[in-house]
């Protein structure tokens, strides 16, 4: 305070000097100069004294802090040297994903995939601003035998669904792991990945057509990892068949069975890969598919029967020296083939005519995502479905079945200011509906709060 006043008066005097000089003789001026000089000297010494004092105080505070830190870490060392501390004492890891979308599309939301009986969560969703699914995850080791977790999906329409609720062994011998409860099936590559880790706003068209978006079921999974340097994992699942929006079957035994194998490894230090082959057999019960009839009306068909799905998948990731920080590249692709036999009810709300249905159809996607500088990535994806063959018996005349092959091309750009936040732009030309090319534009944010979850490859 004192110093400030001194400086202020010194400045005032210094500026005043020329005016005074014209008014007074040189003796006065000398006197004034001397006075100013005196004041300058005095405040400089005061400042110096204050600075020394401040330094002393800081140093002693630093020492106190240091000794406190030392005592603290000594205590931690003493307690931690026996058993490794868990990430959040005894509380489970809790993570929350928040996401929202703005969608601009040239077509309406009456979505269907021409020529495909697809159920579950399909289509690009609503237009305009909307909340996307929020995910709440709670995971922890249960004891020294089990690990478990719950993942709730909070939908924007205020409904809550249990996406995952499983327990998993951690103590079985010979590379075996058993999982039970509700979980995403291990078939394919993308199916097990949570939506917030996807590289695009939506999942591949072929996943929407054949798996109802993403396939999670109530069941049991057994996995075995081979004791080899080459990664080899074999798995089998049984479940109640909750596929594509159906509830599964109320019956003894299982309405779903799957087998899968994954192999993988590294190529040098910069590349790693994984490839897989999966087979999934389900018995969908009353699976409802949006469709357009030959008269152009939006209808709903219903299927019950047997569905057999083959999936071949691969992913290849590259980063210079395996260091993903600056640049990296990811190429992934999957091919799916589905054959179905059973009964299809055409237009359940009005005509409701049921007859035999069988089909053999396929589809694939290929996508590449490149991080060209820290935090920034671009991606390109191509989706293609092959309508193959489908027979509707007496419903043939009502259902569109003209060999149209849906496709889609998607480009995205995303920016991740940190590991926990991501903002994405996506452009797509979606030709999943015949004669209704949908030009889509999305803006999306995905943010994660809480525990730092480890992601799958």
């Amino acid at each position, binding site marked *: 305070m004192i110093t400030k006043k001194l400086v202020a008066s010194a400045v005032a005097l210094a500026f005043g000097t020329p005016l005074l000089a014209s008014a007074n003789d040189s003796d006065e001026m000398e006197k004034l100069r001397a006075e100013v000089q005196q004041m300058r000297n005095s405040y400089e010494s005061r400042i110096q004294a204050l600075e020394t004092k401040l330094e002393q105080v800081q140093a002693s505070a630093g020492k106190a802090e240091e000794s406190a830190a030392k005592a603290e870490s000594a205590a931690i060392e003493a307690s931690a040297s026996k058993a490794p501390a868990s*990430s959040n004492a005894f509380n489970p890891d809790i993570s929350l994903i928040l996401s929202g979308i703005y969608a601009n599309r040239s077509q309406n939301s009456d979505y269907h995939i021409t020529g495909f009986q697809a159920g579950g969560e399909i289509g690009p969703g609503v237009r305009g601003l909307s909340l996307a699914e929020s995910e709440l995850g709670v995971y922890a080791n249960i004891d020294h035998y089990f690990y478990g977790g719950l993942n709730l999906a909070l939908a924007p329409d205020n409904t809550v669904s249990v996406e995952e609720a499983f327990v998993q062994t951690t103590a079985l011998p010979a590379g075996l*792991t058993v999982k039970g409860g509700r979980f995403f099936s291990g078939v394919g590559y993308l199916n097990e990945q949570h939506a917030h880790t996807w590289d695009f706003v939506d999942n591949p068209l072929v996943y929407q057509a054949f798996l109802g978006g993403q396939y999670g079921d109530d069941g049991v999974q057994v996995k075995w990892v081979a004791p080899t340097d080459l990664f080899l994992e074999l798995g089998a699942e049984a479940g109640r068949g909750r596929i594509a929006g159906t509830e599964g079957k109320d019956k003894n035994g299982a309405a779903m069975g799957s087998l899968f194998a994954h192999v993988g490894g*590294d190529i040098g230090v910069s590349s790693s890969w994984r490839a897989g082959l999966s087979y999934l057999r389900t018995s969908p019960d009353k699976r409802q598919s949006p469709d357009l009839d030959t008269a152009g009306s939006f209808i709903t068909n219903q299927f019950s029967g047997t569905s057999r799905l083959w999936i071949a998948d691969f992913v290849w990731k590259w980063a210079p020296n395996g260091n993903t920080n600056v640049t990296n590249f990811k190429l992934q692709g999957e091919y799916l083939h589905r054959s179905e036999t059973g009964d299809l009810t055409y237009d359940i709300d009005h005509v409701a005519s049921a007859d035999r249905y069988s089909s053999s159809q396929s589809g694939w996607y290929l996508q590449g995502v490149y991080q060209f500088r820290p935090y920034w990535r671009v991606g390109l994806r191509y989706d293609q479905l092959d309508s193959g063959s489908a027979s509707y018996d007496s419903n043939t005349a009502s259902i569109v079945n003209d060999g149209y092959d849906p496709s889609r091309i998607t480009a995205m750009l995303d920016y991740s200011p940190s590991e926990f936040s991501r903002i994405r732009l996506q452009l797509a030309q979606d030709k999943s509906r015949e004669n209704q090319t949908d030009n889509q534009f999305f803006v999306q944010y995905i943010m994660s709060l809480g525990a*730092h979850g480890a992601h799958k*490859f």
Partner: protein
Amino acid sequence: MHKLIKTLAFALLTLAVLPAQAALNIFACEPEWGALTQELGGDKVSVYNATQALQDVHHVQAKPSLIAKARSANLAVCTGMELEIGWLPMVLRQSGNSEIQPGKPGYFEAGNYVRRLEIPSRLDRADGDVHAQGNPHIQTDARNIAKVADALAQRLAEVDPANAAFYKQRHQDFSQRWQDAIKRWETQAAPLKGMSIVVQHKGFPYLEDWLGLKEVAALEPKPGVEPTSSHLAEVLDQLKRQPAKMVIRAAYNDDRASQWLAERAKIPAVALPFSVGGDDKAKDLFSLFDDTIQRLLDAAK
């Protein structure tokens, strides 16, 4: 035909039995712990390094190759302190190997045996990638290596009791050589005491604590956040008032930010190996510290 079956059966049997008789399989999360286990275990261990010095260990993926190696491991040697939190839990769970799960003797965290620095007083992601249990880059202080070696030698003996005497003897031998080396390094590094430095990532508090270096600024605005041009300008400005002798970074850090600062502040930019394999000279733990101190001394000239 019978002969072929017999041969095949024999081959399979050999494959199944051999790994059990061979060396103890070590899954080392970072190369410094791989090197340390090799020093202590000699030919009784077979070490696999899950990462290498040119990788940022915070950002490693739960790759299939890691899962395969974790599957056959008898002992995982990692840093802990949340350094590997983004990938190790996934690798361990997917490996189906009950021996190396947290809490088991086959799971070793080096961070439990050293005095931890930079334990944050508040936990907020707004502060960047802070670790609740303190700064995990403990390997840059040679005295920490000695502490970890003491605990690791005991753990090797616990996991592989048949060779306990062997590990004990190797540990005694290593400790002797290491203590001599620490004395040598401390003498060599004496001129560095009190020297002001700028770091790229806050990866060197243990080195600073050991050699008495004074960190005046970091190029990352917050831990784990890549340097921004505005923050670099601030650091440059700060250096005018509070000069530093050099700017140091780990081998895996992108060199652009420290080069930018080095050119403008007219101070040397130094890449330290950070772990075994971080440069051509850092071939084992001894040469890692030889090289680290030599690089600091060269730059301080």
